[in-house]
């Protein structure tokens, strides 16, 4: 436990001491959210007011983008420097080190989500009970886990520059296809057909379900399945990595 604390502290230091990276990965999705909310946030019509629904979908996008970039690029640069080898020869099992990397990304995701919640509240589009908002935040933080694992899996295979490119190439299209930026209802129909196969879609829907009280089970199961698959991918990827 003490050892995990040391690993986690080092990872958190790594995050807060890179102010530029911290700034951009929080500011970008939040600014994006603010823009969309100010344009479309007051539209009515759906089950949930548009601005509040956007907290779920953009929140999903924000949380996913943070945890997708963070542990993967970190592990890729550790590997490139040779620092990962130092971790591997320490008396700490590598699983503990990697868990710390994943866990350290979660408060980071929470930071993005809180900034969005404040933005929504300040612009007056937030219309949900505090309980629903809390559930929404919890779902997004924990639902981001499989994406953090995918990030690790990619970080073990390629260098930090390539990792950033690959992860963005995964993130942006899945976000659009999953209706995280614009509602699927206004998109071509085939978007919805594709979306059902994307974990990003299910995280967005699971978040929305916290506001509508709609069914959540399918989404939870898909995300659990994705977690198992990405955990296995990360493990295989670690074994195959040349450190």
């Amino acid at each position, binding site marked *: 436990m003490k050892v995990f604390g040391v690993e986690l502290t080092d990872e958190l230091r790594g995050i807060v*001491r890179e102010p530029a990276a911290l700034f951009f990965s929080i500011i970008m999705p939040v600014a994006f959210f603010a823009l969309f909310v100010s344009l479309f946030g007051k539209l009515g019509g759906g089950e949930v007011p548009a601005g509040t629904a956007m907290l779920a979908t953009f929140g999903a996008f924000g949380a996913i983008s943070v945890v997708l970039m963070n542990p993967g690029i970190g592990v890729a640069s550790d590997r490139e420097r040779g620092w990962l080898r*130092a971790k591997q*020869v320490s*008396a700490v099992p590598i699983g503990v080190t990697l868990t710390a990397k994943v866990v350290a990304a979660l408060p980071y995701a929470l930071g993005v989500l809180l900034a969005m919640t404040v933005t929504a509240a300040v612009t007056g589009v937030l219309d949900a009970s505090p309980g629903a908002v809390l559930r929404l935040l919890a779902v997004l933080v924990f639902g981001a886990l499989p994406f953090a694992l995918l990030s690790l899996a990619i970080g073990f295979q390629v260098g930090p520059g390539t990792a950033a490119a690959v992860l963005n190439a995964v993130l942006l299209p899945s976000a659009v296809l999953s209706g995280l930026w614009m509602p699927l209802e206004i998109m071509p129909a085939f978007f919805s057909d594709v979306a059902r196969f994307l974990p990003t879609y299910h995280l967005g829907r699971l978040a929305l379900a916290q506001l509508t009280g709609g069914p959540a089970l399918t989404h939870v199961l898909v995300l659990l399945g994705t977690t198992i698959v990405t955990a296995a991918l990360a493990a295989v990827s670690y074994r195959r990595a040349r450190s």
Partner: protein
Amino acid sequence: METVLGVRGARHSYGATRALDGVDLDVGAGECVALLGPNGAGKTTLVNMVVGLLPAGDGVVRVCGGDPRVAATRRRLGVVQQSLGFPTTLKVGELVTGAAVRAGASRSAAGPVLAELDLTDLAGRRAAKLSGGQQQRLQLAMALVADPRLLVLDEPTAGLDLPARRRFWRLLAHRRERGTGVLITTHLIEESAAVADRVVVLDGGRVRASGTPDELVARLPDRTVIAKTSIGRARLEALPGVVSVRTDGEHVHLGTRTPEAVLRVLLAEDPGLSGLRVESAGLEEAVAGLMNRGAA
């Protein structure tokens, strides 16, 4: 003497390159063994196996009786790796404290080790900003902070100047008095002679010779005579005082401890001799010499 490291039948290939071809090695408590060999000899590969980065294949590696692939075994182990880059976000003091906790020691162990390695004033600096020599000391501080039973050092003094190297050797001697076993790799004969109780010469993934520094130095050439000559290899090997013969393009390299005598015979037997030079013997001549004698 208690054994802190035992290696039996270590073998490793990278694709078609056979890096280790059946190596046996032991290090006792308080003993310093130098692994001496030219670049590409397999030193780093063996070190990586000893510290648990590589599987031992069909061989066996035991650190204080345990398998270094198991994390708990590595609590007994301090490692200085050959090419290590520090993260840009962590400070010297944090790294040493972290290393203490990771190896099961208390945080307070960091202070004395920082002082011992003259890093106290740098404790608040980012590790990645230090000079090469300072980073080397930092790695050593991290390796020593939990008082390991076995210290594994891969070319730890590469890039250090001679005074820094001497200080490093003194520090090792001090640790050995406390019972720490040391495995150090180097491509410098002087270094192995200065620090080691026993030198193991590795080349082409095999142990070519081993013994105390004095035993080995007595068998090593200290000069290389280089020349273009028509004298055949068999005759060169038979010349009195010649310890090793190596050809390098048109030139032959003769390792010897008596260059004057060798020169006299060469000039007498080959009037067409040209391109003559005499140099201090390098490690390649030394290894060639040890192999010529069939030492093992």
